């Protein structure tokens, strides 16, 4: 089985079968991460470059660990302070990396479309680790894996995605993937944070959190970028927390047994109350753990190894 594509840039063009294949591949690597010796030789002799133009300890570490557990050689490259300042273009940076025989480039970039631009210019496989507000495919895939691990079937699943949807690549990737698998996606937040026509992507739009939470099995909280205050998107963090913060009382509006997710890093007391983040319904740390297994699966599939 293989994905039959050079790159993983976006979940929009993937089929439900593609997504299922990735999740199933991750299963076998999840087993590896539970062993005492957490390493397999699948990518021995291959080189994975983490090219991060935005600071991201979590995603970079997860990819690094995933690649190392597959026995790949891993290089971390954060050009934010060096070549970009020197005026080198993204493509030139990438071609230099490619010249060092990188098999897979994992790219994080502040601009939407950067991964596509890169993939057009290099022969290496490119994995999008987040591009602007566009997509964050591996995050959505690990979210799906975590939902599935909890035994929740996707068909008919009700999921609320809460927060700044307009500026969220996590939301976009999840809307695409969950819709393809038959889930009902609700997006919730202030109208200032809802992008034009998001309903046409198959998401139900809610401005009232209590209303949106009724009957959902999954509550997916988005991180509030605190620096957006003052840009007329919301008046104060205080009011945002009151209207869109997830409290223990609000969790009760969802289905019994509903799970709470967050891509991290969390703002305790803003979008999520501390007691919710630490509650039994929270699967936030499972997401982190699954991230490694899912990324191992993706690296494996993208490498074409067998």
């Amino acid at each position, binding site marked *: 089985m293989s994905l039959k594509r050079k790159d993983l840039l976006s979940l*929009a063009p993937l089929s439900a079968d593609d997504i299922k294949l990735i999740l199933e591949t991750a299963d076998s690597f999840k087993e590896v991460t539970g062993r005492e010796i957490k390493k397999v030789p699948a990518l021995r002799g291959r080189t994975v470059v983490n090219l991060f133009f935005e600071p991201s300890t979590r995603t970079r570490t997860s990819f690094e660990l995933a690649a190392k557990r597959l026995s790949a050689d891993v290089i971390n490259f954060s050009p934010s302070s060096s070549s970009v300042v020197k005026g080198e*273009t*993204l*493509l030139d940076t990438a071609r230099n990396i490619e010249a060092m025989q990188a098999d897979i480039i994992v790219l994080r*970039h502040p*601009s*939407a*479309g*950067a991964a*596509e*631009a890169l993939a057009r210019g290099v022969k290496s496989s490119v994995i999008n680790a987040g*591009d*602007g*507000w*566009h*997509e964050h495919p591996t995050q959505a895939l690990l979210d799906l894996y975590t939902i599935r691990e909890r035994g929740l079937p996707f068909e008919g699943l009700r999921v609320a995605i809460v927060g700044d949807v307009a500026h969220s*690549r996590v939301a*976009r990737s999840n809307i695409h993937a969950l819709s393809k698998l038959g889930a009902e996606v609700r997006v919730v937040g202030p109208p200032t944070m809802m*992008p*034009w*026509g*998001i309903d*046409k*992507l198959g998401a139900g739009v809610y401005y009232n959190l209590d209303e949106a939470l009724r009957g959902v099995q999954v509550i997916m909280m988005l991180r509030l970028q605190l620096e957006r205050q003052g840009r007329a998107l919301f008046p104060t963090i205080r009011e945002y927390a009151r209207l869109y913060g997830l409290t223990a009382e609000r969790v009760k509006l969802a289905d019994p047994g509903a799970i709470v997710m967050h891509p991290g890093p969390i703002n305790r007391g803003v979008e999520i109350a501390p007691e919710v983040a630490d509650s039994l319904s929270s699967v936030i740390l499972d997401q982190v753990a699954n991230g490694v297994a899912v990324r191992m699966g993706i690296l494996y599939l993208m490498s074409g190894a067998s």
Partner: protein
Amino acid sequence: MTIVITGGHIIDPGRFNGVGDLLIEEGKVAAVGPGVKAPAGAKRIAAKGRLVVPGFVDLHVHFREPGFEYKETIQTGSASAVAGGFTTVCCMPNTNPVNDNQAITEFILERARAAGLANVLPIGAITKGSEGKELAEIGDLRRAGCVAISDDGKPVMNSLVMRRAMEYALAFDVPVVDHCEDLHLAEGGCMNEGLVSTELGLPGIPAAAEDVMVARNVSLAELTGARLHLAHISTVGSVRMVREAKSRGIKVTAEACPHHFTLTEEVVRGFNTLAKMNPPLRTWNDVQAIKEGLRDGTIDVIATDHAPHATQEKQQGFTEAPFGIVGLETALPLTLALVDEGVLSLESAIEKLTTAPAKAFGLSKGTLAVGADADVAVLDPHAQWEVDPAKFRSKSRNTPFAGWKVKGAVLATIVGGRVVFEAPGAA
């Protein structure tokens, strides 16, 4: 030099439309019509089956000189113009330094003379440095040869400054050109705000960013009585407001660009930086409104907004890449496509490239009237060709139309009675 163009279908919009000859003597149109007598020794251009029209007038180009000569120079821009059938072009002041004083204006005119191809007419800045604060020396700019004033891509946001500019311009009867964009509403945007921007996660520029400024400018034109020209309108709302303003007798003219009546925002998919321009490509409804505006005369002029950028600039990410595409060498076939579609008659299509822009800026150009400067284009409206940016005369290649199979070609271009362009292989 005496030139006679024989047997062509001559269209001089509003004056003549039929088969005939065109005689050019001493740089001027000497005679037009059937059976013109040409003196012996005249250069003869056989134009049977061809169109003979006034050279096109483009009210909106960026020739990048001084300051950005790696994108385009007045020489290469002029070569691109005449290859596209344009004999007169008006160049926007967003050079470095900005054309906000007579020294820069004189420099541009000097470079244009040296290039010796098209008539290059500078547009001066409205405000010093196009910073939107203090008026530029508009009187000096006018005297030095500027044909209009505009802060183009840096529209004057302060409505009081814009009002004063319009009032001040009255003293010189100079048109005030505005790129209508509320910079606060558009902040950070790089494509039309809509379904495609939502899917791609790109910051959007709403149609309202254009509309609110059209509304403001029309109100100020009504208040001041200034001659307002709206650059590259692209939205349903703009067309509606200009139509309404004209019906009330406000002195407003408007232009549209070929890309805005040919392409929609869908072309941006795949993060295609060659589809990045400002105003952005809009929706199907907007394209229909632009066509209707052209058809009913709401939009007077077709202009290119020829905006050359170097390849490496357009190879950046979508958000980093600069706005704009080159347009001089593709404008004719894209405009003739409107004739095939039945949106415009052939004569009105030619009018929007010639007499109408000349009238909007008050230029004695764009006509084949006897005594006029002999600026002429000879066209083959049926010639089919494939757009190949490598063959452009422009220094830049940034077009979304590469590989398009189009119809309508320029065979020869004459400026002031001199043949300045002949298509390779054209006899």
